[in-house]
Structure formats: structure tokens, C-alpha cells
């Protein structure tokens, strides 16, 4: 079994190490970081904007470049979090706390370097874990039938809703709305066109990239333009002493290991695994530290642990996405969308049917992580310069890339118009304090949820108890119920609100 893993990884590396694919990986990491560091451009927008660049490539190269973009975007987000105190997504909120304090003390270089090293270490472990458990879970997933799938997706949506900012009720509403928008188009079972407003161009449903671009990229631009400019501090001039001291490394060693363990565990859970894991890792370090009072004042452990956890979770999150076809986060949903555009239906079969692709992707994740470290340590100065680009120069460029990207998915002007509509909708949601993450997850899962619910009902002759009788399905539902309960208990909710308040601001 272990030798299998190595044989498989060897296959993967032989795919990923081809010079062309290596080049795409490098390109992906560079572009991902360059766009990801831009303030006001979160990892999700980065991926959405860069996704069309991968469409024209063969499947392996396309996914390898995507993996590069994914890591680059995540690391770029951490850079912005540390230097500008501006978290790009909820999982980098914690990095802001101590990372920004380190930057204020003139130790931005050390913070950025530790973040890169922690990410790399966690990525290495995560890669091995995927190689070990991916096929295992894929085998288990072969046993899954529609009740298990339905409950799994329901759990993913509930967890995402529970951890999103804003009230639980509106987040659940957003997830449901997402499902409704996911149903737009021809119903697979009956052939009826639903909710298309009579537009034949919507017969195949709304394109994922279109919705994501409108809801995230366009809405974010409008929200940024709405906000008075100039309130931000950027620590750019002091980024000099890049290398962490030996003492830094020794202090960060334990937190990196523990963060990796915590992140790997939570990442497998579909639904906001990354956010939970970075919080959990931070709180855990603070708990075990002999000097907890340093946390919040620029403790290097406070950067190392959540960054390791975040990246380990980002890595293991590929396991449910690839083997079950159930994305655990909005970002993973984008990756899933890219897979589908390449004509690959993720699921238990993917490992068997596309072994070079699966293992190539895993190998390229590791290579992506490696390139990230090699690239970022010398290039931090460049990213800092990009950070200084004023927003009024930046956003027209994002608009151009988004629009061309949306158009190039299917050469459809209707898609571009739909993206504009979702831009307005996304802006209204943002002003109403409704989190878009549950919406986008619901949107992706919508058709699958309906289909699996329908099949479950046929299996059970219309008895909804099937979801509770089946033990695996019941476990998923129990976890979902516990998450809802936890959010209703005031002390838990307060802790979440405190942790997320910066993101909501």
C-alpha cells in the first residue's frame, strides 16, 4: 500500500516535472501571487480572474497552473494581511493579528518569510496526506449512495453558513438562494427549462465563473469604490531584514508542526475547514504558550501556526473536492468548476479514470509550494511595490480581465451581461451584510443536491427517514445540527463574531 503511494507519486512527479508543466506551475504561482497581493483582491477573485488563462491548456497543464495560482493567491493574501492589515478572506484574519504587529515593529520581512516557510512545511505534509488518504476516501466514497451525498452536501452548506460572517439565518437563506440559482437551466430529469426568463442562452444553466466574477470581483470593486480611500497604512519601506533569525525559526518550529496537524484534520471536513483551522491553531498556540501575553503584540508563533494550519487545510481540502466532488469552500468550488470545464467530473472515479491527472495535480501542489518559497523570499520587495499601486489604476485592469475572462468561457455576450447583473446583486448582498460564500457553495451544489434528494426519495419510497436511518448520512446531519446549535449558544457565537469582526468591517 505504501509502495503504491510512492509509485503513484512517481507517476505524478513525472507528469508535473515535464518542463512545460513546470513552466505553467511557475507562471501560475507568479501571477497568483502578483494579483493576490493587490489590496482589495482576495484569493477567490484572484482565482476567478486568472481562471480563463487556463482554459486553453490541456487538462493536466491547466490543473497544474491552477494549483500554482491557488497557492500564489493564498500566499499573496497573507502578504496583504501582514503588510496592510487587510485580510483577503476569513482564513487570513488571524494572520493579521500578529503579522501586522510584527510589521509595525519593522519585522515584516521575518513575518513574511515565516509565513512562506510555514506554508511550505504544511504543504509538504498535506501532499503526503492526500497521497495516502485520497485513494482511501475515494474507495470509501464508492460506497456512498444518494442519501450519503445529500447529507454530506447539506453539512457542507450548513458549516459554511455557520462560519460565515453575519447572522446564521441570513447565511442559511443565502445558501438556499444559491441552490435556487444553481437550478437555473434545463432540469436533467424532466427536460423542463427552469427560471431562464425565456433566454435560450441560459438553457445550460448559469456558468459558475460568471456568477463568481459578478458576485465577487465586480461587487468587490464597487464596494471598494464606495469606501473612502486613504484610511490604510502600508508598511512598505521597512521591509528589509528578510531572513528570520535562528531564534525565530526555533520558536516557530513547534507551532508550524501543531498548526499543520490541526489544519490537516479540519481541511478534510467539507465546509469552511480553512477558517476553523487557522482560528483553532491560533487559539491552541496561545493556550500552550508560556508567554500568552505576547500574542497580539507580534508573536511569531501567531503567524506561523495559523499560516501552517491554513495551508495544510487548503491542501487536504482537495481530498473531498476531488474524491467526492463536493467542494468544501468557495475557492474549492472554483477549482471544481475548472475541472468540469476541462470535462472531468470529480468523484470517486477520478483517481481510477484519470490517474495521471490526479497524481500530477498532487505532485504539482508540492512543486507549487516549493516554487512559492523560492519565488517569494527574493521577490517580496516586488510584491510590496505592487501593493503600492493605487486602486484607481488597479480596478479598471481587474474589470478588463474579468470581462474578457467571462466572455472567453463560452464566447457569449449574454454571460458578460449576466455577470453585470450578479455584480449589482453581489453589491446589494454586501450592503445587506449577507455573506456570499454560502451562496456560491449552494450554487455549485444545487443541481447535485436536488438530484440526490430525488434519488433518495425514490430509494426510500418517499420516506425522509432514510437520511437518519443510514448511519453515515445520520453522522453528517448530526454534525450539521451541532454546528447550528453551537451558533445559537451565545458564547460560541460571540467568539466567532469577535474573530470575524475585521472581515465584516
Amino acid at each position, binding site marked *: 500500500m505504501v509502495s503504491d503511494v510512492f509509485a503513484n507519486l512517481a507517476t505524478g512527479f513525472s507528469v508535473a516535472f515535464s518542463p512545460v508543466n513546470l513552466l505553467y506551475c511557475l507562471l501560475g504561482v507568479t501571477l497568483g501571487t502578483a494579483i493576490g497581493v493587490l489590496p482589495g483582491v482576495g484569493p477567490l477573485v484572484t482565482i476567478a480572474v486568472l481562471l480563463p488563462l487556463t482554459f486553453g491548456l490541456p487538462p493536466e497543464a491547466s490543473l497544474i497552473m491552477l494549483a500554482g495560482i491557488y497557492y500564489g493567491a493564498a500566499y499573496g493574501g497573507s502578504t496583504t494581511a501582514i503588510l496592510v492589515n487587510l485580510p483577503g478572506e476569513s482564513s487570513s484574519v488571524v494572520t493579521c493579528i500578529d503579522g501586522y504587529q510584527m510589521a509595525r515593529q519593522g519585522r515584516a520581512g521575518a513575518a513574511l518569510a515565516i509565513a512562506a516557510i510555514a506554508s511550505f512545511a504544511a504543504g509538504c505534509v498535506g501532499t503526503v496526506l492526500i497521497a495516502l488518504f485520497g485513494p482511501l476516501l475515494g474507495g470509501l466514497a464508492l460506497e456512498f449512495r444518494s442519501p450519503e451525498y445529500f447529507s454530506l452536501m447539506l453539512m457542507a452548506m450548513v458549516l459554511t453558513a455557520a462560519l460565515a460572517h453575519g447572522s446564521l439565518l441570513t447565511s442559511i437563506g443565502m445558501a438556499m*438562494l444559491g*441552490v*435556487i440559482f444553481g437550478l437555473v437551466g434545463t432540469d436533467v430529469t424532466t427536460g423542463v427549462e427552469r427560471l431562464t426568463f425565456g433566454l435560450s442562452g441560459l438553457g445550460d444553466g448559469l456558468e459558475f465563473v460568471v456568477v463568481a466574477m459578478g458576485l465577487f470581483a465586480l461587487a468587490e470593486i*464597487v464596494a471598494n*469604490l464606495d469606501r473612502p480611500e486613504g484610511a490604510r497604512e502600508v508598511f512598505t519601506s521597512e521591509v528589509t531584514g528578510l531572513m528570520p533569525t535562528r531564534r525565530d525559526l526555533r520558536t516557530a518550529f513547534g507551532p508550524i508542526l501543531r498548526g499543520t496537524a490541526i489544519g490537516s484534520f479540519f481541511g478534510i471536513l467539507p465546509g469552511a475547514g480553512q477558517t476553523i483551522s487557522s482560528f483553532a491553531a491560533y487559539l491552541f498556540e496561545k493556550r500552550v504558550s508560556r508567554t500568552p501575553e505576547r500574542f497580539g503584540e507580534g508573536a511569531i508563533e501567531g503567524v506561523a501556526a495559523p499560516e501552517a494550519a491554513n495551508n495544510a487545510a487548503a491542501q487536504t481540502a482537495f481530498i473531498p473536492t476531488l474524491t467526492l466532488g463536493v467542494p468544501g469552500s468557495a475557492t474549492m468550488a472554483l477549482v471544481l468548476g475548472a475541472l468540469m470545464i476541462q470535462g472531468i467530473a470529480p468523484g470517486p472515479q477520478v483517481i481510477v479514470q484519470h490517474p495521471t491527472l490526479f497524481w500530477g495535480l498532487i505532485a504539482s501542489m508540492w512543486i507549487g509550494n516549493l516554487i512559492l518559497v523560492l519565488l517569494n523570499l527574493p521577490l517580496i520587495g516586488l510584491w510590496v511595490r505592487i501593493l503600492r499601486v493605487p486602486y484607481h489604476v488597479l480596478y479598471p485592469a481587474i474589470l*478588463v480581465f474579468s*470581462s*474578457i475572462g467571462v466572455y472567453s468561457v463560452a464566447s457569449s455576450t449574454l454571460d458578460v451581461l449576466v455577470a453585470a447583473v450578479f455584480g449589482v446583486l453581489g453589491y446589494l448582498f454586501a450592503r445587506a451584510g449577507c455573506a456570499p460564500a454560502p451562496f456560491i457553495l449552494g450554487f455549485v451544489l444545487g443541481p447535485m443536491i436536488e438530484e440526490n434528494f430525488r434519488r433518495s426519495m*425514490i430509494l426510500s419510497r418517499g420516506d425522509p427517514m432514510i437520511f437518519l436511518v443510514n448511519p453515515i448520512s445520520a453522522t453528517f446531519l448530526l454534525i450539521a445540527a451541532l454546528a447550528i446549535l453551537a451558533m445559537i449558544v451565545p458564547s460560541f457565537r460571540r467568539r466567532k463574531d469577535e474573530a470575524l469582526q475585521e472581515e465584516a468591517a
Partner: protein
Amino acid sequence: MRLTVTRDLLAGLLFLGLGGGAALMSSSYRFGTILRMGPGFFPVTLGLMVALIGLVVTARAIVAPDGSPPVGTIRLRPVLLVSASVVVFALLVERLGLAAAVAALVVVGSLAGPGLTVRGAVAKVVVLVAIAVAIFVYGLAIPFKVWPW
């Protein structure tokens, strides 16, 4: 009593409108039974659930307006011009080609933000058209109509 538009109120109304609208549109599709779900089953059920959530959130916002922060002034200029710029791009890209569509997009989009000068706009147009053509037409070889002629 003056009604302040709080975040909750806006959220509630959005849910009511979108959920109710979806349920209404889907009411013409066959509903079916839980055993044999018709195409209307899911959208109608979910639409009504969303509308119900909207009702609860709206009611909560009206009864206890202090429970959520006010929406504040919505400035129409950014939201309208940003979406308009994308719409303009969509309308022009197949008729006049990529270069003209990008140029129009940049001009309209730039009007949405602060600090626009004629020189700045010209510079942005030239640079972004060049980048777009270089990356998408030459780099990725996507078959675009580039120029109007």
C-alpha cells in the same frame, strides 16, 4: 417613527423578493409528489423557504431596528458605472472588436472612481488595450475579433 433602512431590512427584502419571485416563476412547473418530484418541487419549496426567512428577517428589522447597523447611503455612481462598463463591453466586443470594447470599458469604468483626468484615461486605455490584446489574442490565441474593421 422613522424607518431606518438597516442591513437586516435590506436582507429581508432581498430574500422576500428573490425567494418569492423564484417560487412564483416555478409555480407553473409541475410540482409532483415527494416520491416523484416534478421540476417545480425544489425551486418552489426553496423559494418559499427563502421568502419565509425574508419575512422573519424583515419583521425582526422593523420591530427591533437597533438590532443591525444601518445600510447607510448607497452611492449609485460606482455601482451603476461599474456594471454599465461591463454591459458596454458585452455590447461592443462582437460588433466593434476587442480593442474598442476594452477602451470603452476602461473609460466608463474609470468614471466610477475618483481622480480621473483625460491624460490618465488615455494612458489607461492604451496600456490596458495593449495588455489585453497581447495576453488574450497573442498569448492565449483566443480567436477574438480585435479591430473594428
